[in-house]
Every structure is written in structure tokens, then in C-alpha cells.
């Protein structure tokens, strides 16, 4: 089964983190990605640019409206994702727990509708 790990963190705190902490975080993510790849569970992953670069489109009744920024203002923002292949939810959760982002934010684990 495929699971999507959605990483939510406080974007401002992350962007304003001291350089040393940021470097540590980036290398932790690289190691995490590597471990996931070597274990043969990683299908795909990406880091997202901040919500200030987001654009939201709605088109009720075919009339488009385009807005700057994310769909909703929240305390934690979607920062990236991992798509993984796992036999069951327990295994997916074990990977979510290891995600460096879990220390500072939250990881939403969603089964892919297949």
C-alpha cells in the first residue's frame, strides 16, 4: 500500500532558525531520505517552497479567482511530503516517527486511495 507522509511545520520558525540548527535539519532529512531509499520504501519525496510563494485558484461556476498565498491560514504549514510503499499503517507510522520534522511539527499519514 502507498502512504503519503505530509510534513507540517511552523514555517516562520523554520525560516528563522539559527544557521547551525538549519544545517543539522537539512542533513538529518538527507539521511532520512537515504535510509528510506535503501530500505526500499521511498516512492517519492519533495520539499515545498514557503507558503508566501503559494497561489490559490478557485473557480465556482467556472468563474476563476486567483489569490496569493495558501488555501488557509494555519499555525503549521505543509512543508513537504514523502510518498512511501509500506505493507501496512504500522510500518508507515514507524517511518513517520523517524521523520526529522516530527520533532518540531507533525506528520500526517494518509493512505493513498487505490
Amino acid at each position, binding site marked *: 500500500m502507498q502512504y503519503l507522509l505530509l510534513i507540517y511545520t511552523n514555517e516562520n520558525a523554520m525560516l528563522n532558525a539559527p544557521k547551525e540548527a538549519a544545517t543539522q535539519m537539512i542533513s538529518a532529512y538527507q539521511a*532520512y531520505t537515504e535510509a528510506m531509499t535503501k530500505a526500499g520504501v521511498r516512492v517519492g519525496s519533495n520539499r515545498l517552497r514557503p507558503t508566501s510563494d503559494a497561489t490559490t485558484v478557485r473557480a465556482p461556476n467556472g468563474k476563476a479567482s486567483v489569490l496569493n498565498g495558501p488555501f488557509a491560514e494555519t499555525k503549521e504549514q505543509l512543508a513537504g511530503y514523502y510518498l512511501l510503499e509500506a505493507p501496512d*499503517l504500522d510500518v508507515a507510522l514507524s517511518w513517520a516517527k523517524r521523520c526529522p520534522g516530527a520533532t518540531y511539527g507533525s506528520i500526517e499519514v494518509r493512505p493513498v486511495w487505490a
Partner: protein
Amino acid sequence: MLAARTRDVAGAEDALSEAFAAALADWPASGVPRAPEAWLLTVARRKLIDAARRRRTSDDAVDVIELLAEAQPEAEIPDERLRLMFACAHPAIDEGVRAPLILQVVLGFDAAAIASAFLVAPATMGQRLVRAKSRIRQAGIPFSVPGRDELAERLDAVLEAIYAIFAEGWSDPAGTQVQTRGLAEEAIWLGRLVASLMPQEPEVLGLLALMLHAEARRVARRDAAGEFVPLGEQDPQRWDGALIAEAETLLLAASRMNAPGRFQLEAAVQSAHAARRSTGRTDWMAIVALYDALIAVTGSIVVAINRAVALAELEGPAAGMALLDTLQSDRRLAEYQPYWAARAELLARLESSGAAREAYTRAIGLEADPAVRRFLQRRLAALG
């Protein structure tokens, strides 16, 4: 404990929670009863009798008669808990749910807290617990301490479940996670309970000794800044001398029974480490010998990794690496952090920095504890 009477765990829990509610309602007015546990049990039993009367099945009628006969407060509460533990860790119960079941049934943890501790979705944990409890009821799993012939095997399952609870608490030394805080203490409490009721079982004493030795080092596993300190770099004076002394007494008593087992051997390894507190050195030869014995008993790959690390201390990193290499083909290792951390450490000592770097990276990626992750990152950076 009530379930031991009626073989209905779900019913017993409901009655007990009603009793707690009654206790909360009554106590402020009437004062705390002198023996709150016995009192609670009496109230719960009364509630259960009421519920059983309402169901009015022939089965329950028998139970009700028994319950009425026993409705006097009595002193043997711990015995009930022991019987309950044997039911929860029965071979017919799925191994993975035994420890959670004990937490819920014997210690009263709620399903959500147990789910977090064992890293399982709350709904899933709820279902597993319900299924296990209905299995106890429908399969007629007895609430009793098994007879001599099958005691050893059944007792192992109980001890393993208690150790699983301890391990969940142990993985969070800083006590930062609300849901696992106190699990190690709860497991030690269960260990003490079983040890007080079965003092003639060496493995029971062994498990308690093992948990106490580990617990004695809890504080020393982190420095003032909250950073991880590996065993070899811990200051033995920060270990808890009283807990170590208690563990040593238990282990000595167990060893006199001349029936070594997994938990006694593991406790003996910890005892050898604890000796550094008084001797200033670690007897690696003894530790390797103990791991040899453990491998013979368990055949566990986790033990094999520990043995390789101990052998590296005794005969040098190359000997340890040679042992680790023999394990390589096991596919489970791809997700097992201690294997990669051990590899990285030995490769670093062998000055094979490329391979060490790769192994550290795997270990960092598999680690969930941020303090240990930072520790491994520092080691990686030190490779230059």
C-alpha cells in the same frame, strides 16, 4: 482482577470504571477509605453483580453466586492481577497485543495512550484490544496461574510482555513524551509484583534485576544540556546506587537457583557494566561470554549485534566488524538503527571513513530520538 472472577474483561473494566466514578463521588464526603484498593474492588464487585443480574444468563448466574460468596473484602488482590496477566499473555492472544492488553486490563491505561506508546493508530489499537478481550471470553482462556508443566513457557510470555512495556518507556529517557512517561516505572512495578508472588522463579528475579539496572542509568543517559551520552562515556557516579544494589541482590538470589535464562543473562551483562562504578573498568571478557550464552538461548540478531560490539572492545574493531558482516544478509537490518550505528562506530575506529560515513548516515536516517540523532551527526562530522 475482577475479570478473574467472571472471565469477562470488558465487563470487569466497565464495573471498575463505575467504581472509580463512585469513589470520586463518595470520597470527598466520607474521607479516603483505609484500604482504597480493597474498597474499590468491593464496590466494583457489587456493580458487576448488578450488571450480571441484568444479563440473567445461566453462565452469569454461576458467576453471580461465586461473586456473592466472595463479596467480602480480602487481601489477595495481587494474586488476581497475576492471574489476569497470565490470561493477557496467553499463547492464544496475538503476541503484539499482550503488552497493550496488560496495560489496559491490569493498569487501567486507556486505548489512546497505549496506541501512542506502541506507535499504532488509536482506532487500530482499540480494535486489537477489543478483539483480544472477546477472544479471552469466547475461547475460554483461563484466568489462572498455569501448572508446573507449562509454567516456564507461559511465564516467559508474561515476562516478555512486561519487558515490552519497559522498553517503550526506556526509549524515551528524557520523559518528553507524555504518553510513554512512566511506562518504565509501570513495568518495574509489575516486575516487583510478579517477583513478590513468584520469588522462586529465577527468570522473574532476572527480569526485575535487568529493568532496575537499566533504570539506574536513566539520568546518566543525558547530559545537562539534554544531549545523549553513550554508556561507555557515562559517569558511573550518576548511576543510582540503590537500584543497582537491589538488582545485584535479585540477580544473586536468582543465580543460586541454578537455572539461567534469557533475562538473568541480560541482567548479568548489565551487572558487568554496573561494576565499572566500583572497579573503574569494564570486564569485556565476561560480557562476551554472557552474550555467547545469550545467543545460544535466544538466537536473536539483536544479541548478535551487541556481541559484536563487545568483541570489538575485547579483540579490536576488526573482530567486531567481521562478526557484523556475517549478519549482513538479514533484510530486517535495513530498518534497524542499532546495526548501522554499531557498524559506523567500528568502521570509524578502523579509519574506513567512506564506509563509516555511509553507515552513520543510515543510522541517522533511522533514528527517531532527536538527541541521539544529534549525537550521531556529531560523530559523522568528526570523521572529517
